[in-house]
């Protein structure tokens, strides 16, 4: 009897300790990326304006796939992939995939010059305060989030993409 009770007590104590440790490890891993949404999470909603002051709200794109790209004029890979993105945009905009290109808060002159230079047709919005970058926990550039028609993040891509990559990504979020 005594032995049995002792085993029960030991088991209970160990379970409590294990639960506390398990929770800590879980909270650490989940909290380590606190506020940094990644594949499987809902994409944090935001509101940003383009150079003309027009507002874009992510949640307005429900029902469509969103190719959310963070970029800067000083980012070398961006200079290659933005024209590629534009080419794919011409094809996939009619298939329900939109591109939102978030500039990391540079001067209007620099952004306008870049848009003109590469003749970009998708909306370019400016994250002047850096709040959206913080909400998505991005660095370095370029950083791309694939968001499906339900507003969920399908994937997060860091680094340079070419036409073929972008096409494959677009396919994944096509509604």
């Amino acid at each position, binding site marked *: 009897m005594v*032995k049995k009770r*002792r*085993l029960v007590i*030991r*088991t209970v*104590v*160990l379970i409590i*300790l294990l639960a*506390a*440790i398990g*929770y*800590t*490890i879980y*909270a*650490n*891993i989940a*909290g*380590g990326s*606190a506020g940094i949404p990644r594949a499987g999470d809902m994409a*944090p*909603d*935001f*509101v*940003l304006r383009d150079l003309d002051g027009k507002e874009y*709200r992510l949640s307005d794109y429900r029902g469509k796939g969103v190719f959310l790209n963070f970029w*800067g*004029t*000083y980012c070398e890979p961006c200079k290659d992939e933005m024209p590629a993105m534009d080419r794919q945009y011409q094809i996939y905009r009619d298939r329900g995939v939109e591109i939102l290109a978030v500039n*990391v*808060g*540079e*001067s*209007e*002159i*620099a952004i*306008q*010059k870049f848009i003109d230079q590469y003749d970009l047709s998708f909306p370019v*919005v400016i*994250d002047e*305060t850096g*709040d*959206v970058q*913080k*909400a998505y926990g991005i*660095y*370095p550039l370029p950083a791309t989030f694939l968001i499906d028609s339900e507003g969920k993040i399908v994937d997060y891509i860091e680094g340079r993409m070419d036409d073929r990559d972008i096409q494959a990504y677009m396919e994944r979020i096509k509604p």
Partner: protein
Amino acid sequence: MERVKCECGHVNPPGTILCEACGKILDPNEEKKLIIDMRYEGAARRSQTYNRTIIDKIWNFFSSVKVGVVLIVLALIASAIGTILPQEMNTTMNVPPKQYYEENYGVFGRIYYLLGFHDLYRSTWYILLIAAIGVSLTICSIDRALPLYKALKRQRITRHNSFMKRQRLFNEGTVENWDDQINTVSERMRQKKYRVLTESGNLFAEKGRFSRWGPYINHIGLIIVLIGAMFRFAPGMYVNEMLWIKEGETKAIPGTDQRYYLTNHEFIVEVYDESDREVYREALEKRGKIIKNFQTNVTLYEAEGEVLPGEDPQLKEIKKGEIRVNHPLRFEHFGLYQASYLLNELSAMTFQLVKKETEEVIGELTIDLENPEKRYDLGKGYIVEILAYFPDVEFKDGELRTKSPNPNNPAFAFQIRSPEHPEGERSVVFIQETLEPLGENDYKLVFKEVDTVNYSGLMVRKDRTLGLIAFGGAIFLFGVILGSFWQHRRIWIKWDGGKLLVSAHTNKNWYGFMKEIETILADTDVPIPIDRGGGLDKPERANKGGDVNGSTK
């Protein structure tokens, strides 16, 4: 193993060394010693007695003090290694941490990063190590405190001769009239705050038993501290972020989910000067500039309703404040601390438009480096347009470009329109140099002055676990005090047919104890116990259990 029945009639748990009741030696190994090991009162440490199921095996592993010490040493070594390179949170890096450690510290940095030393407090193995210490602490304490408690509760007045004779303080002798003296001795013991019990001529006096619980109480304190540390990982309990905010700027305070905003009105640095007290003069002459004050003047706002990232918030002023070193601005559970600053960062540049021929100044323009205007109309047909802006210019691959979005080294491509040149003249202006790529111009932009702005670096802190951690610390100290300033003292006197056996035990301060016994037994026929410690079977060691003052934890 079976339960052990002592000749006194008490049934002891398996593994018992000294009978809980009378103290008779039950373990043959112990019998060979001249002085018995009084650690844990010779009680059976449970951990060592059952070893059947996996639960028992895990339990026994953590019950070992040796394992506990090894875990603590490992944690110490890991923490020490964690100080070799800067921790990720204390560095400002523009590249991913993996790259940062590799570029700056080579192969060592790479290994350091891979093993998680770059962010030690958040690396899983380190947390597991600390957790293992917590488990060890809990199980070690349970396994020792409970048997000790039971043994002390069950001890009887009359002890077995083998127990009496193997105490460190012991003496025996014939006494004629013990019956007459037992009351005197008891009375003196009571005056010394002993609890005295007698039983057919045998006497047992005890005081300060509570001091034995000191170490376990301080273990409870440590466990509470660990629980507090655990809560830091829970959402909403702990925030530690940096907010860089320049003068004139309003920004969302990180960690508040866009709920609180802050405006930096001014950042001030003050140094001591002649107007300060005379006593400082010598120090000032020696050291030159000495900082007197770092201060940020701010206004705190709360956003109305929920604000999405990037959205312009509707702000309601909460309060104005001055943040100085050690004088944070507090709101809700947050504190904003003055932690760092950057002085004289470029914010605007002023140029004069000059006609080269006559050196005549046509007009002035001030360019905001954060977001320059496209066009500056100086009147009378003079217009300066910015064609391109490079905040941090470099010349690479045959073209101008910017290294970063920060105005560290700005350069502009201007188009200068004038009545003589309505189509404009092209001019590229760097901080030190002006280029006129399309031929000699009639007009030039002359750099006049810069405006600078100061950045304040504020630490955003929220720690709702502090109360619990302080409570744990207080419990810890309480345990230390109990264990350190009181001793558990016991004296046994046994009437053994004309002979009187006297023995005594304490967990520390044997000298003081001896003096006390001498006072109690003075002018009586009771033989004063002799300290047989210090060499004989290493009794100090025997009495230096981990339970004495908690110093082993």
